[in-house]
C-alpha cells in the first residue's frame, strides 16, 4: 500500500482526527497550524488560523459543523468547520492539553496543564448557553490536585469523561457533578493518548510504560494489554476488525545514535483478542505521535515527529488475514 503523504506542517504533529463520516482528516502540530484535509486524496481543504502557540488537540462534532482546538497559547477555540471562522475564544491560565465534543455535540470539555502555579482543571461548557462562552465561565470546573490530565475522552452518552493522567491513572469524572465515579490504576507511567472505539463502548490507552491497554468505557474494566519495548505515544481501535494500531518511539532527546536504517519508526498492528503483534508499517523519519483509523476501517493515518501525516489504504490481504498459523507480516 502506497501511502498518501500530507505535507502541511513544519513541526511535529501533535494530534490527527477523522470526522464521523471519515471524509475529512484534521491535523494539528507544534507549528501553531490546524489543517483539514480530504482523506480520499490528501488534498488540503483549509487552515484554521489564530493560535499563537503549539496546538495540542483537535476535535470535530458529530455533524462536522464545529471544530475545537486547544493550544499552548492558553486558549481553547471553537471554529466553524466549513468557513474556518473563529466562533469562540476561551482564555485559560495554562496550556490546553486535551479537548472534545460530547456525543450530542452540545457540550465541550477541555483540560488545562499544571503550570506556573495554576492547577490542572477539567472544564465543561454548554454551547447551548451563549452566556457561558461570553463570560468564559464553565458550568463545571473540576480541579485535579495530583497528577495532571494528559488525555481524555467522553463516555458513550455524554455522562462522564474518562481521563488519563501523568502518573498512569485513569479517572472517570461525572460531567454533571464533577465527582470521580470510577478509577483504574493499570499503567505505571504517563498516559500519552486515549482513543475510543467507533461505538464508544471501549477505549484504548497508550502509555510511556511501553504498553497500550484496552478498557471498557463504562466499567473501566481492564480487558487487554499490548506490550512493546518502546514508549507508546498513540493507539487506535479498528472499527471493523479485531485489530489495534500503535505508534511510538523514544523521545527525540533520547536518540543519541544515528541508525543506518532510514524511516525506522514503525506503526505496529496487534490482534485485539490474542494480544500478539502481526504487522508493522515503516515510513516515518521520527517517532509516531498520533495514529487514527478511518471510521470505515479501510484505511488508517499516522502523524509523526517529522511533521508528516501519512494516510495508508489497506491491501485486500489485510482483511483476509487470519492469525492461525505462523505469523506473516505484511505491508
Amino acid at each position: 500500500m502506497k501511502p498518501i503523504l500530507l505535507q502541511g506542517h513544519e513541526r511535529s504533529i501533535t494530534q490527527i482526527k477523522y470526522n464521523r463520516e471519515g471524509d475529512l482528516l484534521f491535523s494539528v502540530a507544534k507549528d501553531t497550524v490546524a489543517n483539514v484535509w480530504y482523506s480520499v486524496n490528501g488534498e488540503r481543504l483549509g487552515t484554521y488560523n489564530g493560535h499563537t502557540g503549539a496546538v495540542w488537540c483537535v476535535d470535530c462534532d458529530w455533524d462536522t459543523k464545529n471544530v475545537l482546538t486547544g493550544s499552548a497559547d492558553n486558549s481553547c477555540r471553537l471554529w466553524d468547520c466549513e468557513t474556518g471562522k473563529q466562533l469562540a475564544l476561551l482564555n485559560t491560565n495554562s496550556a490546553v492539553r486535551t479537548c472534545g465534543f460530547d456525543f450530542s455535540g452540545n457540550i465541550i470539555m477541555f483540560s488545562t496543564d499544571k503550570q506556573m502555579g495554576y492547577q490542572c482543571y477539567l472544564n465543561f461548557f454548554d454551547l447551548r448557553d451563549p452566556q457561558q462562552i461570553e463570560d468564559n465561565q464553565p458550568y463545571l470546573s473540576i480541579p485535579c490536585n495530583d497528577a495532571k490530565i494528559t488525555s481524555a475522552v467522553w463516555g458513550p452518552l455524554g455522562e462522564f469523561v474518562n481521563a488519563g493522567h501523568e502518573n498512569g491513572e485513569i479517572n472517570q469524572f461525572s460531567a454533571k457533578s464533577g465527582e470521580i465515579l470510577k478509577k483504574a490504576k493499570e499503567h505505571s507511567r504517563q498516559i500519552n493518548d486515549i482513543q475510543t472505539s467507533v461505538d464508544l463502548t471501549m477505549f484504548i490507552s497508550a502509555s510511556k510504560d511501553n504498553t497500550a491497554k484496552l478498557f471498557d468505557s463504562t466499567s473501566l474494566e481492564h480487558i487487554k494489554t499490548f506490550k512493546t519495548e518502546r514508549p507508546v505515544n498513540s493507539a487506535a481501535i479498528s472499527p471493523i476488525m479485531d485489530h489495534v494500531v500503535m505508534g511510538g518511539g523514544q523521545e527525540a532527546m533520547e536518540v543519541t545514535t544515528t541508525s543506518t536504517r532510514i524511516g525506522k519508526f514503525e506503526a505496529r498492528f496487534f490482534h485485539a483478542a490474542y494480544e500478539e503483534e502481526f504487522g508493522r508499517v515503516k515510513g516515518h523519519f521520527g517517532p509516531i505521535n498520533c495514529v487514527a483509523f478511518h471510521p470505515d476501517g479501510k484505511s488508517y493515518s499516522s502523524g509523526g515527529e517529522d511533521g508528516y501525516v501519512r494516510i495508508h489504504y489497506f491491501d485486500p490481504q489485510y482483511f483476509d488475514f487470519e492469525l492461525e498459523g505462523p505469523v506473516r507480516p505484511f505491508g
Partner: protein
Amino acid sequence: MGIVNENTEAPVNTDQSESDVTIILSELLLDILREKPQEADGIDSVVVVDNVPQVGPERLEKLKNVIHKIFSKFGKITTEFYPEADGMTKGYIFLEYAAPTQALEAVKNADGYKLDKQHTFRVNLFTDFDKYMTISDEWETPEKQPFKDFGNMRHWIEDPDCRDQYSVIYEAGERTAIFSNDAKEPITAEERARWTETYVRWSPKGTYLATFHQRGIALWGGEKFKQIQRFSHQGVSLIDFSPCERYVVTFSPLMDTKEDPQAIIIWDILTGQKKRGFHCESSAHWPIFKWSHDGKFFARMTQDTLSIYETPSMGLLDKKSLKISGIKDFSWSPGDNIIAFWVPEDKDIPARVTLMQLPSRQEIRVRNLFNVVDCKLHWQRNGDYLCVKVDRTPKGTQGVVTNFEIFRMREKQVPVDVVEMKDSIIAFAWEPNGSKFAVLHGESPRINASFYHVKNNGKIELIKMFDKQQANSIFWSPQGQFMVLAGLRSMNGALAFVDTSDCTMMNIAEHYMASDVEWDPTGRYVVTSVSWWSHKVDNAYWLWTFQGRLLQKNNKDRFCQLLWRPRPPTLLSTDQIKMIKKDLKKYSKIFEQKDRLSQSKASKELVDKRRAMMEEYRRYRETAQQIYQEQKSIRLELRGGVDTDELDSNVDDWEEETIEFFINEEIIPLGDL
C-alpha cells in the same frame, strides 16, 4: 597547684579547684599510669627464646651482644637470664622487657628469625607456657554441627533434555532470574527481586552463583538455589574463584589497615573460613592473583617482584618471592603449572619472554626480543600454544609493527615461530581446543579477518582472509571450529557466523546495538544482547544456533546481563566420546522424534490458548453490544433524531455528486509530421 600522690591518689594540697586539678593531672599522667608496674605484670613482659646456640663462657659475651642487638629493637630489655648446665648455655634464654606490649612485639617479629643455618629462634610469651600447661586433661568432644544438606549441587546437569542454564539481570538490577535454555522459549528456573546489588558471577565449574551485597558476597547453589555460604567483606566490588572452586578471592577498596591487610581476602568456600588477607594498591587489573589451572598455586606481580603462593597453606612458595627486575606481565598456562612472563629492554639487555616451570622454578624457555614497545600474552585454552603479541619499532623506522611469536608448548624445547603482521591488530583469539587462531586487523572501514593454522610441520599457514568486515571482537565456540565475528557497540551489532573447518560464512546478520556475545558451554547456541548498561533502549537478548539461525528474541525491561552457567569438565574418557560419536546416528533418530513431538505439542498449546482468548473477548463484546443496543433511544435523542449508528444509516439523506479533479498531465510529442 596540687600534687597527686600516686599511691594514695589523694591530693596533698587542698585548693579551691582541687578536684579539677586531680582530673587534669590524672589525664596527663594517664600514659605513665598505664605503664605503672603491677604485680602480675612481671610475668607478662617476659619472653622465652628457644634454639639459642649453646656456647661456653668464652663465647657468652659475644652471644649476649648478638641477642641484645636483635631483641632490643622491640623495647627496653630490663633483665636477661641465660640458664647454664655443665659450663654451656642450655639453649634457651629468658628476656624481660619494660612492658608487656614490647614482649608481644618481640614474639610477633622475632619468632621464626633465622640466626644461622642451624638456629631458628622460637619466641613465646612466658605466660603462654602457663596457659598451655593448664589446658584441661579432659577432652571435650566439640559439639557436632548439624549437617547442612543443600541437596544435589549438580542438579542442573541432570536435566533430561540437556538444557543449559543462564542468569539474567534485568529491571536495571532489581530482578535476577535463572532460565533453562530451550530452543522454543526460556523456562524460568528461579526469579528473585534484589537477589544481588550490582551483578552476579558463576563459579568456574558452575556449582555456585555469587551475588554482591554491601556487606560481602553470598554463594547460592543446589536445585533450589539455597544460600550455601556467606563471606563478610564490607564494600566488596570484585571477586575471583580458584579453578578448582575450593577458594574465592574478594576485593574491597574500603577495608584496609596497615596492620591488618583486608583489601584482598582469600576464603575457603566449604568451611567459610578466611584463609589470608592481602594489601592491594589498585584493582586496575583484576584479578590481581592469578591461579594455576589445578588451583595448587596463585601468584601476583608487584614492582620488580613475582610472588607465588601455594595452597592450602597460603604461604609463599619456598618462603620468598621472586625478584624479577622490570617484570611487566605474567600469566599461567591453562594446561600446566608453567608461568610465562616478560621484561622490557634494560640498557643493553634485550627484552625477553621467559617460561618458568613451577614449583621447580626452572626456566624451560627464554626468548629474546628486540626493539619492543609492548607485549601481550595469549595462551591457547589447553596450554598447547602460547602466542606473544609483540609490538616493535624496528630500527630506523618510526612506525609500530606487530609480530606474533608462537610457542609450541608440546614440542621438545618449545620451538618458536614468528608471524609478521603489517596492519594494526584489533583482536586476537585462539581456537579453544585446536591449533587455529583468528586475527582482526586493519583500520575501519578496511578491517580484515584472517585465520591461521599452526601446523605440525613447523609452518603457520594463512588459511583465509576476509576483507571489509564490520567486526571488532572474536568469539570462538567453546568446542572450537565455529565462531562469531561481531561489531559490537559502535559498529551497530554486525554479526558474521563462520565455520573455520573450511572458512565459510554460514550467515551474516545484525543485532542492532548489540553490546555482548555469549556462547553456551556446549557450543550449540549463541546469545547476543543489548545491555541497558550500554544502551538505554531495545534492551533484549537474542538466541541463535551456532550456524547463525535466529531462534528467539527475548525483550526484558532494562535487561542488563546474561551469563551462561559453566559446566563441570566431562566425566567421559576420550575413548567413550569416540564411541558415542560413532553411534551418533542411533542417538540422533531418538532426539529428532522427541523434537517433532514437542513442536506439535507447542502448536496445539498455542492454538488452544488463542481459542480461549478469542472466546473470552467475544463474550465481552457481545455483552457490550447488548448494552449498546439498549441505549439506542438515548443516542437518537442526543442527536436530534438522526440515526448515526452505522455509516450508511441515513442513506436517504445522501446526495450523490460527481467531481472531477486533476490527477496528472502527460505530454507526448508526435514528432515531425
